[in-house]
């Protein structure tokens, strides 16, 4: 069948325009029975003949047949395509009259047959004028690779006009060749040609070539392509090894505790089993003893002793053998796969680094405001997380009024800054100002504000998450290769973090305000006596720190959901960032955010299934880190730090 098919396809492709004596209807009539009631086996003959005919009507017929639109007219046994209420001639495609259900018999191909029809269609679709159909055919082959698809695919490459699709076809053909080519050399060449391709399907192909199955035998079989030997107790557990022996009928099965129990229960007679009273059988030892008496009497299969198990394991070899018999092919596949996996690992590392970088920039945005206020005023603002939330909700509200997402984000950023700046200044004036020199009480008072704000947001916006939609041009991701990709939103957040870093450094180092802020940070008393108004500086710093939190809120809201609790999710990490980085220093915060961002991604990579554990370990790491650098990475030294 395969040969026929290949020939047929070659025939139609190389000799188009040849005239045919037969009509499709004639051809179908010769297989009338199979067309009406096709079976998985019998349909092959029909399909072969149809394909061999090279008739242009074959493709629409096959599609109609597959879609269960073919009927036979009882009066003359002719086949038609039915669509709606109309019958169409199969050869000319013209309508021939209304379809009356009486006198028409449906051809009802089952699932297996329809799949076979679909396979036959793929060959035609590969060269279909419609690029969508060609693409779909290639996708179908890639989904379920099969030996029969290799030749039609290779034949269709030459005539492919679309360069991208041609490349895809060539790649797919290479994979099929690696799997199914007839000669060893062809396969090895194809396998080696796959090197440098990091995609998942190529790796799957190579893994298919390298698929192994475990085996056990008294001696290593000569003809097998052995992948590796397995040592019981090291490579596989002794229990598993013995189970394999049992499965291969090379050793008697073990008697499990529940089997012992069932055997004993089945042999209870007069309140005793084999002379053991039932009430004594409450321990494993006594149960085994009773069972052995039964076994001696031949009533139950004997127990397998430890020594017997060990002897059975010793007298057999356990191994993994490749399903592919040719060692040359498996060696080539192994070498290629190793090469690819090295590249994948490197790419994953790069991808992880990008992830870490984007997480670090989020933490930096979330923490920098906190770091500034903590550094200048020595107060921890527990409501900082709620300022982040306020910023995000500001963005949400702006989007309610401004439907253009680009514009709304451009409005939301300064507005969020303004709103949280105002909230920060108000909080400083009303609360924090009265609590200087009582840092722990500031912490608690701001905590009170935090729970009030959180509940207030819940009352206003409800408990469900609100979306903050990013503009279209931020959708999608920047893709470097099959492994390395980073979404544009994360890039935008990274850029935003960079801008704020530059802005804050500029404000602190190059402006009058920055000079005064630094003066107050280092020596408030001295600064006051130099004519700097510390009250004003404190208020402005607090507003600035809160305003940045608002902007961070918009940024975070773009990629995470906006909820009343979102601030709480970031506040502990922000504290950690500040503490690890060192207080009162922008670079310290940057270092802290980087450390925590990269660390969190690194731990998640080591233990991807369990993000809870990752967070636990990270916090433990931070607690230990504080042991060695109590003042953070960038520590202030000298008398200022000691006070």
């Amino acid at each position: 069948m395969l040969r026929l098919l290949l020939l047929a396809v070659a025939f139609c492709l190389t000799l188009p325009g040849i005239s045919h004596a037969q009509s499709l209807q004639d051809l179908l009539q010769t297989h009338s029975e199979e067309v009406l009631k096709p079976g998985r086996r019998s349909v092959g003959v029909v399909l072969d003949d149809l394909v061999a005919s090279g008739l242009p009507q074959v493709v629409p017929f096959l599609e109609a047949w597959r879609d269960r639109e073919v009927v036979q007219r009882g009066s003359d046994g002719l086949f038609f395509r039915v669509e709606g209420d109309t019958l169409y001639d199969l050869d000319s495609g013209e309508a021939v009259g209304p379809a009356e259900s009486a006198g028409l018999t449906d051809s009802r191909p089952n699932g297996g047959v329809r799949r076979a029809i679909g396979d036959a269609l793929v060959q035609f679709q590969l060269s279909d004028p419609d690029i969508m159909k060609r693409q779909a055919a290639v996708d179908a082959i890639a989904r379920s690779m099969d030996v029969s698809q290799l030749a039609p695919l290779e034949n269709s490459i030459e005539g492919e006009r679309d360069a991208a699709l041609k490349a895809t076809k060539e790649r797919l053909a290479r994979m099929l060749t690696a799997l199914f080519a007839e000669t060893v050399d062809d396969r090895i060449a194809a396998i080696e040609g796959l090197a440098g391709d990091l995609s998942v399907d190529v790796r799957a192909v190579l893994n298919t070539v390298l698929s192994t199955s475990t085996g056990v035998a008294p001696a290593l079989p000569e003809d097998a392509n052995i992948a590796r030997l397995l040592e019981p107790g090291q490579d596989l557990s002794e229990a598993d090894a013995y189970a394999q022996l049992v499965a291969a009928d090379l050793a008697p099965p073990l008697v499990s505790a529940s089997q012992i129990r069932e055997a004993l229960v089945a042999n209870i007679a007069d309140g005793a089993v084999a002379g053991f009273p039932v009430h004594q059988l409450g321990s494993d030892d006594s149960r085994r003893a009773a069972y052995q008496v039964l076994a001696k009497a031949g009533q139950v299969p004997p127990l397998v002793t430890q020594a017997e198990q060990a002897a059975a394991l010793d007298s057999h070899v356990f191994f993994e053998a490749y399903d592919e018999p040719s060692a040359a092919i498996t060696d080539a596949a192994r070498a290629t796969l190793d090469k690819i996996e090295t590249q994948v690992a490197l790419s994953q590392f790069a991808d992880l680094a990008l992830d870490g970088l984007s997480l670090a920039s989020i933490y930096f945005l979330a923490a920098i405001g906190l770091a500034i206020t903590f550094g200048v005023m020595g107060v921890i603002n527990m409501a900082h997380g709620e300022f982040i939330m306020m910023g995000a909700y500001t963005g949400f509200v702006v989007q309610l009024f401004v439907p253009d997402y680009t514009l709304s984000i451009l409005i939301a950023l300064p507005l969020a800054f303004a709103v949280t700046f105002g909230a920060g200044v108000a909080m400083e004036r009303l609360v924090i100002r009265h609590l200087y020199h009582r840092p722990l009480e500031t912490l608690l008072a701001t905590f009170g504000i935090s729970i009030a704000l959180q509940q207030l947001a819940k009352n206003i916006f409800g408990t469900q998450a609100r979306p903050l939609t990013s503009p279209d041009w931020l959708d999608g991701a920047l893709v470097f290769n099959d492994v390395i990709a980073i979404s544009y939103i994360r890039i935008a957040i990274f850029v935003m973090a960079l801008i704020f870093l530059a802005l804050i450094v500029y404000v602190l180092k190059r402006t009058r305000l920055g000079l005064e802020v630094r003066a107050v940070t280092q020596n408030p008393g001295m600064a006051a006596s130099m004519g700097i108004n510390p009250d004003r500086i404190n208020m402005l710093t607090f507003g600035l720190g809160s305003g940045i939190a608002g902007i961070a809120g918009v940024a975070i809201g773009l990629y995470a959901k906006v909820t009343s609790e979102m601030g709480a999710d970031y506040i502990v990490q922000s504290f950690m960032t500040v503490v690890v980085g060192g207080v009162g220093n922008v670079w310290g915060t940057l270092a802290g955010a980087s450390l925590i961002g990269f660390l969190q991604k690194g731990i998640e990579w080591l233990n991807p299934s369990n993000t809870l554990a990752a967070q636990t370990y990270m916090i433990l790491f931070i607690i230990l880190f504080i042991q060695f650098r109590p003042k953070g990475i960038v520590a202030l030294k000298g008398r200022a730090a000691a006070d």
Partner: protein
Amino acid sequence: MSTLLEVSGVSVSFDGFRAINNLSIQFAEAELRAIIGPNGAGKTTFMDIVTGKTKPDEGRVTWGERNVSLLGMSESQIANEGIGRKFQKPTVFEDQTVRQNLAMALKNPRGPFAVLTHKKTKRNAERIEATADQIGLLDSLMRVAGNLSHGQKQWLEIGMLLAQEPRLLLVDEPAAGMTSEEREKTTDILREAAQTRAVVVVEHDMEFVRRLDCKVTVLHEGSVLAEGSLDHVTANQRVIDVYLGRGHA
């Protein structure tokens, strides 16, 4: 007279600023010494090093007959070795009574469990009263320390130091903010204490130093500039330069 404390070749710097520069200084068993010097001369840092608050970058600090090094010790260990320190600002426990302040300072076992099971004894009460008498606060034993006058707080702190029964007393600007009568009394207390132990006074006020009438060490830029009687050091040209016109030294 044998040496009680020897500081030799000590240097320490903060962010590149050398607060103490190859400083060497010695104190005898029972003496009264005044350390003077302009702002930033390293007086407070010197006390920080001796009491263990700051670790020097290099140099040695040895203590007592057995020449123990103080450098590896924590603040509390050094205090228990017999070095007491009074801060520049009066730091007494303002929420507690004078008696409680003195009781805490009294030389007794310092471990948490010893303190937890501590019982009030007659001997301790007598010691507290004796110290209170020495600093003139016998009538104020039950008063809360926060309600004392500035001078009384200074005396209470000196009293707490005395109750510790240290062998070396480091006193930072005891006379700051005092009236002249209070100063006189402070001088008396310190001179009396120096009969049995070493007392080192860091002071700005020349008049007060003159009244102490003791050996004087002048610090400048983290090292010893001059040493001797007050008249001797004030006659020193370099000292005059340092005090009057900076930049000549």
